[in-house]
């Protein structure tokens, strides 16, 4: 059996075992853990588009919102059933993922013929259109937002999705398709000359990424139990782009670590702000944690423009050992 598959099964098993004890985890840390999981899915899937295929997309939150709303509508229309809850949830997540993938196909088809900045603008425009649509459609709560009465997202489902996302992305990147992605990223003209259909590869990466963003949206909706169009605005997309850039474009382990760090950091700064041993003089600065957070981001980007973990680093090698077999 090849090693990536072993890792996949092991991590699913670990997720299942931990989920048996999730009641014992402090709810606050549990909340952060689930958020980390959702951010890993978002970061790793966007990395497929931005890092491996070299297409700059600013619309990832748009796909996430499609997934969130679609899955929420499934749950709301089926209603609450104690039996078959997991089955309904899987269905809702898949509908969310597939709707987002469909949206990805619709946007990606025509717009991926564009390059660089133009693509960024089209994806940004798409995400804004989606947001405005959700803000005005009464059936999904419009500007009031939408409450989901159940919270089915738990540790197991979240980290099962994380494991599957990482597996699929790693698997894709190390397959023939992956060679195609990398070629398109490195030189699109040369790729076309070699007979590679660049648009096909770009659309594929885009649709797969949108699918997982949709899954992340579904998990989010069934965890926070309330979704609002504002939550999927342009800033949310930027947050995901930051995870990818900080982790290192085209470096999946780096992106995972960046997702973990960037989720913990604001909460860590929150804890630091209320730390009693803190000198009163610098407390206001620490309490304005978003200033500190942004400063840290700037510092990190200045010190490590190639991303936190460049591909040659020791940590990356250690993390990659398991996945090395497929490389």
């Amino acid at each position: 059996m090849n090693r990536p598959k072993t890792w996949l099964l092991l991590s699913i098993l670990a997720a299942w075992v931990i989920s048996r004890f999730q009641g014992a985890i402090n709810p606050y840390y549990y909340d952060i853990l689930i958020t980390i999981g959702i951010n890993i899915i978002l970061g790793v899937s966007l990395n497929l588009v931005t890092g491996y295929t070299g297409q700059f997309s600013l619309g990832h939150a748009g796909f996430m919102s499609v997934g969130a709303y679609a899955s929420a509508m499934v749950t709301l229309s089926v209603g609450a059933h104690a039996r078959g809850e997991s089955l309904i949830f899987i269905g809702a997540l898949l509908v969310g993922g597939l709707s987002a993938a469909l949206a990805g196909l619709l946007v990606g088809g025509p717009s991926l013929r564009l390059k660089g900045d133009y693509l960024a603008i089209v994806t940004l425009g798409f995400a804004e259109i989606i947001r405005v649509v959700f803000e005005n459609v009464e059936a999904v709560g419009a500007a009031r937002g939408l409450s989901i009465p159940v919270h089915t997202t738990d540790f197991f489902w979240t980290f099962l999705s994380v494991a599957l996302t990482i597996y699929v992305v790693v698997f894709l990147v190390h397959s023939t398709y992956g060679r195609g992605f990398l070629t398109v990223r490195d030189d699109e003209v040369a790729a076309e000359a070699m007979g590679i259909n660049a648009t096909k590869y770009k659309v594929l990466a885009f649709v797969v990424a949108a699918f997982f963003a949709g899954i992340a949206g579904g998990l989010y909706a069934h965890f926070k139990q309330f979704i609002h169009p504002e939550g999927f605005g342009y800033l949310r997309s930027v947050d995901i782009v930051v995870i990818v850039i900080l982790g290192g474009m085209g470096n999946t382990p780096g992106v995972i670590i960046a997702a973990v760090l960037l989720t913990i950091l604001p909460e860590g700064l929150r804890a630091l702000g209320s730390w009693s041993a803190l000198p009163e003089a610098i407390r206001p600065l620490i309490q304005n944690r978003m200033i500190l957070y942004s400063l840290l981001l700037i510092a990190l980007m200045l010190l490590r423009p190639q991303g936190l973990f460049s591909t040659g680093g020791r940590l990356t090698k250690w993390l990659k050992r398991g996945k090395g077999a497929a490389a």
Partner: protein
Amino acid sequence: MKRISFFAMAALIALGAAVYAQDEIKIGVYASLTGGQASFGISQTNAIQLAMEEINKAGGVLGKPVKLIVDDDRSTPGESATIVRKQIANDKVCAILGEFASSRSLEGGPICQENKIPMISPGSTNPKVTEIGDYIFRTCFLDSFQGEVMARFALEKGYKKAAILTDEKQDYSKGLSQYFKENFTKNGGQIVKEQSYSSGDKDFRAQLTSIKSTKPDVIFLPGYYNEVALVGKQARQFGIKAPMMGGDGWEGDALLKVAGTSLDGCFFSTHFSADNQDPAVQAFINNYKAKFGAVPDCQAALGYDTMRLLAQAIERAKSTDPKAIRDAVAITKDFSGVTGKITLDANRNASKPAVVQTIGEGRFKFVENVAP
């Protein structure tokens, strides 16, 4: 991958080592201290802090000082749920003061309900907030009440024909228009024209032209101050002399600056008037000014009342048990606050008077209190 989540957990547990003290009463506050709606969030939190200091100076609650756990939600969806979980699990708060923004109260509310911790929202007007469950309260009136108040007020003033100009992007605005229309037509008024715009619009001439031709006695304009000021200016340039009316969304300094004198003699309903000569209100205004260097807005007044109402309820409950506090809050009757006498009804909503204000001499002026 699993290695990573173990690291994450270890790091989190290290970060979260909190110190527990048993001799104070901990109350959670989550508010938008940064981000888009920070100006309301900050004034509300300031007023809550002012109320806390006054309570502690007077000996605290049940003989113990009150300690506020204030957390910022960045005006961003998604953060409120995390914060509420933190305040309940780590800080062990016995009650939570919610957000003024309904969308964030709707996010934190279900978690309070699930953990049976009472939450009081000072300013969320969406009816759904208190429908979450029996642990969720609010101390402001609902949009339906504002619509009703202005309809009654318009009829008392002798206006028979009204035109309505709604901000179709804001649920708040749509709600006010709907309730105004219902109450106005039920009691003998007539709606001669309904028009709409979207937040962010700058030009309202098309809507105003169509309104002008129907010669209304009054124009009901339940929007937010940015657009209201522009509508007012453009209407006067157009020669529309009819007075305008709106809700608490009008109350912003920017309204006076942008509209100049064009909205003089117009009316709007709100929660609180700084003109109110009640000594308690004047003391609140002076203390707030002395501490924060600004005149308190309506969200500040609501925050101040909510904190004091909660402290009084804990005192009556004679316990910091969340269930006992909930029961005590639920039977609040005729609590006299700076925004009027507050009684909580069976649906955990506040029944309280509204204030009608007018505009003149470059400021807001008190007209009357309208009882529920």
